């Protein structure tokens, strides 16, 4: 059995699409997610003790099904749950896989190192084979099949709930999430100051998007770390990424390379990020961004 963990994050549908390439897949759902069309078989995990997310309980349910292959999204939860499964069973976990092909009983894998700026080709043997799929490595696509869902009740006890989400803080109403925004306006050292980001905020607001930053900017305290785009921050995949005053270190590029289009505003035409862009405006962002904002307002946006 090939099992695919569906954790409520939209990236789960990418993992499900990826897993179909390995054979018939069963989706294992702990939270209500619409997987209709993505797979013929789905199991919804039900148990009186099962409330909010509990990594060891989720891992136990997977172990109990004795799968041959487990695929999970490359999210905090996907990595955490499969690490628990791997530790319990004493088998490897291949994290952030971008390609997999059967080779007899083994799997030939390509996985990300260095956040994706380096790839590793590897061979995975043994059972079960555990892998997470790198976010945005594949495009989620329905298979157009009818999905039959049945319930599955694992044998969970209190010991599986020592670690469990015990509270939540909801995001402030009206905030646009960095990882799902259609437009992200990113700022780097070239923005010059904390206050300089007000310009970027204005542009992002006009476009219904949100602001992100490079590692330099979050380390300087100009933006909170939650705004960081890059290897140690968020991996984004917006329709448009507007990179302002960002030179484009590889650690930043791996965070934004899944953007469908990139518009660069930079003083230096030779900055590495320009080679990754679809469009570039060369010059001072402190003049260019206000000019774009003024033009948008003139057009009644």
């Amino acid at each position, binding site marked *: 059995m090939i099992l695919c963990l569906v954790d409520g994050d939209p990236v789960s549908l990418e993992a499900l699409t990826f897993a179909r390439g390995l054979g018939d897949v069963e989706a294992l759902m702990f939270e209500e997610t619409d997987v209709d069309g993505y797979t013929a078989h789905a199991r919804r995990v039900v148990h009186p003790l099962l409330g909010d*997310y509990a*990594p060891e309980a989720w891992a136990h349910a997977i172990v109990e099904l004795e799968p041959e292959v487990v695929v999970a999204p490359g999210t*905090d939860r996907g*990595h*955490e749950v499969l*690490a628990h499964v*791997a*530790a*319990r069973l004493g088998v*490897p*976990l*291949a*994290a*952030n896989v971008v390609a997999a092909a059967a080779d007899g009983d083994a799997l030939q894998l390509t996985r*990300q*190192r*260095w956040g994706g*700026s*380096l790839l*590793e*080709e590897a*061979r*995975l043997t043994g059972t079960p084979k555990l892998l*997470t799929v790198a976010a945005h490595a594949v495009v989620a696509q329905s298979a157009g099949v009818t999905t039959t869902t049945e319930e599955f009740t694992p044998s969970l006890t209190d010991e599986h709930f020592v*670690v469990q989400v015990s*509270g939540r*803080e909801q*995001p402030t109403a009206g905030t646009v*999430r960095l990882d799902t925004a*259609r437009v992200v306006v990113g700022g780097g050292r070239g923005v010059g100051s904390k206050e300089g980001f007000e310009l970027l905020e204005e542009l992002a607001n*006009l*476009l*219904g998007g949100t602001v992100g930053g490079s590692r330099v900017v979050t*380390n300087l305290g100009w933006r*909170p*770390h*939650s705004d*960081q785009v890059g*290897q*140690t*921050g968020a991996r984004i995949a917006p329709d*448009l990424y507007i990179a302002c005053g960002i030179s484009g270190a*590889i650690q930043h590029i791996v965070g934004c390379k899944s953007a469908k*289009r*990139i518009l*660069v505003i930079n003083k230096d035409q030779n900055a590495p990020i320009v*080679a990754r*862009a*679809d*469009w*570039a*405006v*060369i010059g001072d962002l402190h*003049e*260019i961004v206000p*000019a*774009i904002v003024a*033009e*948008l307002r003139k057009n009644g*946006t």
Partner: protein
Amino acid sequence: MCVKRVPETGARITLTGDAQAIDTSLLGFTISPHEECAVEEALRIVGEHGGSTTVLTLGPPGAAEQLQNAMAMGVENAVLLETDGSDWNAEATAAALADAIRAQPEPFDVLLFGNEGADTGDYQVGVRVAHTLGLPCVTGIKGIAIEDGKLTARREAGGGWEIFELPLPAVVTVKEGINLPRYASLPGRLRAKKTPIARIEPQPRASALETIRLVVPPEQETHVEILAGGADAAPRVVEVLRELGLV
């Protein structure tokens, strides 16, 4: 806390001739970013609650440099699990660390890791050590508070936060952003140089996940269109935004 020595990569990664490793002949080394925050968090916790800190790393003899960096920040004790410099898999690394942690003379309350190594990105060593030691564990944490023998951990989720409560002792893997690591002071550096490092020789073991080779992904060069004129390009930018359906 457990840290990892990683090369400071520049704008491009270059591989060795056999494609088994990064060519580090021209590179400096550092503590992997999430783990540098683990060091800072350990010092912050001890500053608030008292106690002492020990840093462990598995790596080549040169990894003593990263242990000294941690000691220069204020960590008291250091243990080097010395290897021949080859890449160890996550299972072997976790087993060796768990053995070394069990052999420590003092019991501990909190065991910190980075969420994932900057280089191999395996996302699992902390969880494996927790299982071996029979301890509760949570990963990807960006906030820790300790009160009444209980650890409260915060993780970013869906633009908000989810909160976990763990009994001590506990294993926590942290992410950059939990704090801003302090700089080492000069007296700290001098003291670190004089402090002895405990050394252990761990035994490697094979994994069913075997690296064949490393590959630098091809550059995704795009055809960049320069919108000329600096600020005068604004109307053309808005045209592009309109073509993309964003205005």
